[in-house]
């Protein structure tokens, strides 16, 4: 029994490790010269790593938590102490205790009530079957906001909230996708919270280590620099054509984002594509500013900020736990990510430095700056995850996790649980490994 896995991110490697453990002969083709997909580590100072991609987890992320224990990786809390900075008007920033923005609490409460109502109306395991699905799938979140949000503070905050939560511009996602995303991730409170929520912990030393350790266990079964061009199936198996040759196997797992899965030449062709014209890349650029020390803490500041104007729409203290350098991570999301990603590198640095200096007066010049543009990553096409636009769930949803004969699907976008998160990717890897084991093992015995 042999299986080819396409993509060495969390989903692909979880699937490959699960299959290998059941005695399946696996080959993993990875397009990049590294494993990890949308997890990626940057060493900002000797031995100090930050997450250029996915970073956070909470206690409901049970598959990831179990995998970390298996791989002997630890977590570190994202504890925030100190006051926040908010630049939500024309000013350079206001200091306020806690994480709550200086906006009308009643207006934000109405926004969250409305989002909670969307969450409660959706069927997580099959959003396209939700009550009113057809209408919610036609409407964009931007159109919904114009109709439902009256208070200017709610209108100001909604795109910032969506950008931070799912790296989306409100015009890019359908209301059905927004509702589904909330439900899938455990609701607005869980998705939004650091303590007691989905951002409670980081992985000590960086999230990239998960894939590195999974790949180390698979050894030379993982082949880097091998973008897959075609998957041809016949009655007996699949032929997976990569850059330097092809491999024959009983089945294949495609564990790449939907728009990338559509670049593979599938024969026979897919009955329904994996993505549509309105499927957008998750719009995230992550900026890491490295300082000799987290000096904002001496001023009683947590490093957390929320800003109406870019490029850094929010910042968070991501300093490594060892007490060395200070790292301020800036999130550039939604529409702002497109604008910022198009700038020359020098201009990107200048804008990020200037904004950080306005937000946290008295900071020295950064000693390092790393800009990770996920929007234009050829082998991710966006981050945190694909954004399902109008019509996508109705058309693509019913087949997202349904095998195309011998081609099986994994990836965080195929998981209705914790869609878009590391947890969703890992659950999809487990699901697909069990699916293949059940389907082909049974045939092996009875053929």
């Amino acid at each position, binding site marked *: 029994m042999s299986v080819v896995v396409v993509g060495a991110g969390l989903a692909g490697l979880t699937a490959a490790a699960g299959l290998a453990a059941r005695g399946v002969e696996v080959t993993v083709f990875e397009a990049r010269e590294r494993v990890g997909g949308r997890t990626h580590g940057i060493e900002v100072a000797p031995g100090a790593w930050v997450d250029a991609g996915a970073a956070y987890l909470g206690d409901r992320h049970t598959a990831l938590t179990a995998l970390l224990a298996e791989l002997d990786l630890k977590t570190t809390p994202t504890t925030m102490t100190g006051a926040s900075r908010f630049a939500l008007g024309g000013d350079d920033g206001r200091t306020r205790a*806690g994480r*709550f923005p200086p906006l*009308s*609490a*009643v207006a*934000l409460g109405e926004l*969250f009530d409305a989002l909670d109502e969307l969450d409660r109306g959706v069927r997580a395991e099959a959003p396209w079957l939700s009550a009113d699905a057809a209408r919610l799938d036609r409407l964009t979140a931007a159109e919904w906001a114009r109709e439902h949000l009256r208070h200017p503070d709610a209108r100001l905050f909604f795109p910032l909230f969506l950008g931070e939560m799912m790296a989306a511009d409100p015009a890019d996602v359908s209301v059905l996708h927004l509702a589904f995303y909330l439900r899938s991730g455990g609701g607005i*409170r869980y998705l939004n919270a650091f303590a007691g929520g989905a951002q409670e912990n980081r992985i000590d030393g960086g999230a990239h280590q998960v894939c590195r350790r999974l790949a180390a266990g698979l050894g030379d079964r993982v082949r880097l620099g091998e973008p897959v061009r075609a998957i041809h199936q016949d009655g007996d198996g699949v032929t997976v054509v990569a850059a330097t040759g092809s491999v024959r196997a009983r089945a294949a797992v495609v564990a790449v984002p939907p728009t990338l899965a559509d670049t593979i030449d599938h024969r026979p062709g897919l009955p329904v594509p994996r993505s549509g014209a309105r499927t957008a890349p998750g719009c995230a650029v992550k900026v890491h500013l490295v300082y000799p020390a987290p000096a904002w803490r001496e001023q009683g500041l947590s490093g957390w900020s929320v800003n109406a104007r870019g490029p850094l729409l929010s910042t968070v203290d991501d300093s490594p736990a060892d007490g060395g350098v200070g790292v301020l991570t800036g999130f550039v999301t939604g529409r702002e990510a497109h604008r910022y990603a198009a700038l020359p590198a020098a201009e990107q640095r200048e804008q990020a430095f200037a904004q950080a200096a306005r937000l946290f007066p008295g900071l020295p010049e950064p000693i390092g700056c790393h800009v990770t543009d996920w929007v234009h990553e050829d082998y991710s096409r966006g981050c945190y995850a694909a954004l399902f636009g109008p019509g996508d769930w109705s058309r693509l949803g019913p087949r997202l996790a349904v095998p195309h004969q011998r081609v099986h699907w994994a990836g965080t976008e195929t998981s209705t649980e914790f869609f878009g998160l590391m947890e969703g990717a890992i659950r999809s890897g487990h699901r697909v490994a069990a699916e293949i084991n059940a389907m082909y093992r049974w045939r092996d015995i009875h053929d």
Partner: protein
Amino acid sequence: MNVNAVSDVFRRVLENPEVSADSDFFVMGGDSLLATRVLSAIARASGVELDFDDFLDAPTPSALAKKIASQA
């Protein structure tokens, strides 16, 4: 809005039936996001718009009901 009505709002938002007149919202797992939903429910029911600091000052149904009464 009396203390029972405020308690009901706490129960709904916290999704926890175990709320009494002296339950502290933030001790019971309430965070700033959930707090805004309490404040919007109060505004809808009583017309009184409290802010986040008011709630921090008066985090129990009984204290919050007094605050609402004093501003109504």
